[in-house]
């Protein structure tokens, strides 16, 4: 192969890595000067508490998502009980629920003055209680982010856990013991991958924690910025946050050690009966109820009382733009991710693999930090060009999403690519197909399942994204998430209900495709 064409095929991977590197470099350069007074102040008054809060949140969410994700994944793969097929898909529904929406809804129904509190205090004659405790924040984030663990753990259990467990059972091990000594360790890489996704989302979350006034490093970044007007100190705090991200990433990488063979077999489920059956149903239904159904009902209730506030043209414009942005960004991300796969096939190297995994870091950066970095780069380029072309343009917005969600697109694509057998490509070569033909006629169709999952997941994420959309959107490109921000930041939760509902429904469209695919896998 010609040198130039090897490079041409690597170009998109290099470009995306550079784009991810730009905001990270901006953060690093923020350390050239330090506002010592401000740092001293932060150190004396805030920082220890912020770090402690952040660690508590991370630990709590790690336990929470593992507990919910692993138990429910195990229940739906290893057992049979009434509604299992429904729960198998319904457990994914919270993916369509933005964290900031679940936070304001759950707080809205349990906070002071809510009907629930009124009932509680009048029935038992006690004072209303303050629910805004760390436990509640952890519970909310766990309920939103557990599907990552659920999705990956479920696949792992299906692929290898069950058969090994059956072997262990025939050797006389109890089901519980074989689960803990065999299935869990074997599925550990998948579970850790899910947990690390959940933790990155947790670190990046601003909306949900600020509803509870729970202070983390991420809220401190905003405070340094909006209170002290020190974008510099904000960037420095953000690079501290990156250290936490690095910890999570390293932890996840370490857990990947130890390979296992994957072979899908139709699982033989044990039929539950009696009390166990009841508790399995109760567990699954209470999670779906609290994380999805009740919040949607509450949103409907709020929304119904304020529907006259909105006009239909405005809502349909919001809906259309949100969908369009999600769709275009998803196509763009998947395009970039598939060029990455192609580059690995035709022009692999260690350097290439490194820059590709580096590009995944965009997902771990808080959206606001990433957005500022991109803004600074875009405006700098505009100054060079002598014309305001990039900032506030559609292209930059889409690029921002690609940078942020590249990892989400790359995950399923890479998984699909890892199942491609070299012999298939060899056969294609033998038939004399050129590289383009090899790609279009052989690989692309084989990658299609991964491609469509990537497309759908990126789309859901982009439509929910808030801070980058706020900062980088062109004039007139308000999305549903922007609208939700405008209402919730003023505490107008009942007004936020309608855009929130539409956003959830809109996210359900790609979700339904995703679920269909998952269901399709089974048969």
């Amino acid at each position, binding site marked *: 192969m010609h040198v130039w064409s090897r490079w041409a095929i690597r170009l998109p991977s290099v470009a995306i890595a550079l784009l991810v590197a730009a905001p990270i470099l901006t953060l690093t350069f923020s350390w050239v000067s330090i506002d010592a007074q401000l740092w001293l*102040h932060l150190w*004396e*008054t*805030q920082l220890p508490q912020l770090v402690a809060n952040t660690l508590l949140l991370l630990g709590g969410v790690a336990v929470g998502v593992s507990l919910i994700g692993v138990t429910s994944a195990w229940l739906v793969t290893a057992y049979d009980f009434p509604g299992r097929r429904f729960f198998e898909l319904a457990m994914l529904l919270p993916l369509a629920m933005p964290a900031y929406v679940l936070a304001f809804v759950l707080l809205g129904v349990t*906070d*002071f*003055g809510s009907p629930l*509190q*009124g009932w509680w205090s009048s029935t038992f004659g006690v004072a*209303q209680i*303050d629910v*805004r405790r760390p436990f509640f924040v952890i519970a909310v984030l766990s309920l939103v982010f557990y599907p990552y663990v659920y999705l990956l753990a479920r696949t792992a259990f299906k692929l290898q856990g069950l058969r090994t467990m059956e072997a262990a059972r025939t050797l006389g091990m109890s089901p519980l013991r074989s689960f803990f000594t065999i299935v869990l360790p074997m599925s550990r890489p998948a579970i850790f991958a899910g947990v690390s996704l959940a933790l990155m989302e947790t670190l990046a979350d601003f909306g949900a924690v*600020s*509803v*509870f*006034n729970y202070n983390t490093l991420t*809220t401190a970044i*905003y*405070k340094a*910025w*909006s*209170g*002290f*007007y020190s*974008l510099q100190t904000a960037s420095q705090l953000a690079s501290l946050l990156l250290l936490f991200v690095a910890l999570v990433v390293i932890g996840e990488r370490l857990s990947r050690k130890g390979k296992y063979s994957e072979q899908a077999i139709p699982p033989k489920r044990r039929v539950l009966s009696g009390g166990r059956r009841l508790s399995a149903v109760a567990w699954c239904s209470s999670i779906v109820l609290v994380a999805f159904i009740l919040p949607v009902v509450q949103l409907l209730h709020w929304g119904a009382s304020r529907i006259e506030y909105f006009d239909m043209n405005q809502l349909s414009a919001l809906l259309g733009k949100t969908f*369009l942005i999600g*769709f*275009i960004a998803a*196509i763009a991300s998947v395009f970039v991710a598939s060029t990455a796969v192609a580059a690995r096939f035709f022009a692999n190297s260690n350097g290439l693999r490194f820059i590709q995994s580096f590009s995944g870091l965009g997902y771990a950066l808080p959206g*606001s930090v990433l*957005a500022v970095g991109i*803004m600074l780069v875009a*405006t*700098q380029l*505009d*100054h060079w060009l002598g*014309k*305001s072309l990039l*900032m*506030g343009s*559609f292209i930059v917005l889409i690029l921002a999403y690609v940078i942020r969600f590249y990892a989400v697109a790359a995950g399923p694509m890479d998984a699909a690519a890892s199942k491609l057998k070299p012999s298939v490509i060899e056969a294609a070569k033998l038939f004399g197909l050129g590289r383009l033909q090899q790609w279009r006629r052989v690989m692309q169709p084989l990658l*299609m399942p991964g*491609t*469509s999952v990537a*497309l*759908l997941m990126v789309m859901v994420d982009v439509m929910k994204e808030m801070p980058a959309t*706020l*900062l980088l*959107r*062109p*004039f007139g490109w*308000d999305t549903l998430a*922007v609208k939700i921000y405008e*209402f919730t*930041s*003023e*505490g107008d939760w009942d*007004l936020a209900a309608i855009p929130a509902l539409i956003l959830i429904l809109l996210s359900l469209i790609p979700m339904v*495709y995703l679920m269909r*695919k998952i269901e399709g896998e089974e048969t």
Partner: protein
Amino acid sequence: MINLTFARVTLLAAVAAMTGCDQPVSQDDDILTVYSGRKEHLVKPLFERFTADTGIEVRYITDGEGPILARLKAEGEQSPADVLITVDAGNLWHAAEENLLQPIESNVLEMNVPEHLQDPNNLWFGLSQRARVMVYNTERTSPQELTTYEALADEQWHGRLCLRTAKKVYNQSLVATLIEAHGYEDTKKIVEGWVRNLAADPFSNDTQAMQAVAAGACDVTLVNTYYFGRLENESPELPLAIFYPNQGEGERGIHVNVSGAGILKYAPKPELALQFIEWLSQDEAQYMFAELNQEFPVNPNVPASDQVRAWGDFVADDVNLRVAGQRQAEAIRLMDEAGYQ
């Protein structure tokens, strides 16, 4: 599985729609560009009325103050923005401090906007006022017991006070004016007293704090008037009422703040920008601007809405609002030190 043809067709449609919506605006057109820290639903009706009155189109983005100022700084002379609209004098002061605004020579504005609600160098003008007042539970306390912001630090309020988070600029501005009046150390004692008296951790917004007061978790809180107005409309049955503090003989009066506007230094169309801000300071727009959010007009000749007038008259602190900006960082430090989260 996604149908590829379908995907291609949608993409084509998308690109067509994009180019349709995203056409570059020619500089000659009568289009004014506004960056707004005020939310869309509070400014859009005004933009529409302005367009109807003058034929000048308005395009805008809304975002938080931090991102907007960072964006203006980064865009520099290439910024398309003509007007900055935002809430809180602290934010306006920062925009001025960052050298983002240009001085406005306007007799109309000087006439319509009182001295203490505008920047001394005419970089920005207030357009609506909001007062930060006490809201109390009418079943658990009475106006006789309430006096001043400072007195909420007293022992008698132990376990009876609720507050919004110190991260909100409204509280930062209030504390900034307290520092101006009492000095750093005495103000710190006051804020420490507030923190000691808290019945619950600070809330993320004023409405939550009022709900807690109504639920009996505490007896009194500090909120901006319009939040009370909104809650009053939604749940008139709640046992809540407004109290104007610091009204006694020789006292400072209540803390008022503004939302306001300025012309950006690199505004491509400064004349349109001036025309717009002057328009905002006049009768009809003033009434609308205030009424949309149950605030008080800055123009003394324009009455507030009926609901707002029903809350009664008050004496306002007439310290120049630039203090809110000058002392904002100091105020945040003080609140951090006092443990006000």
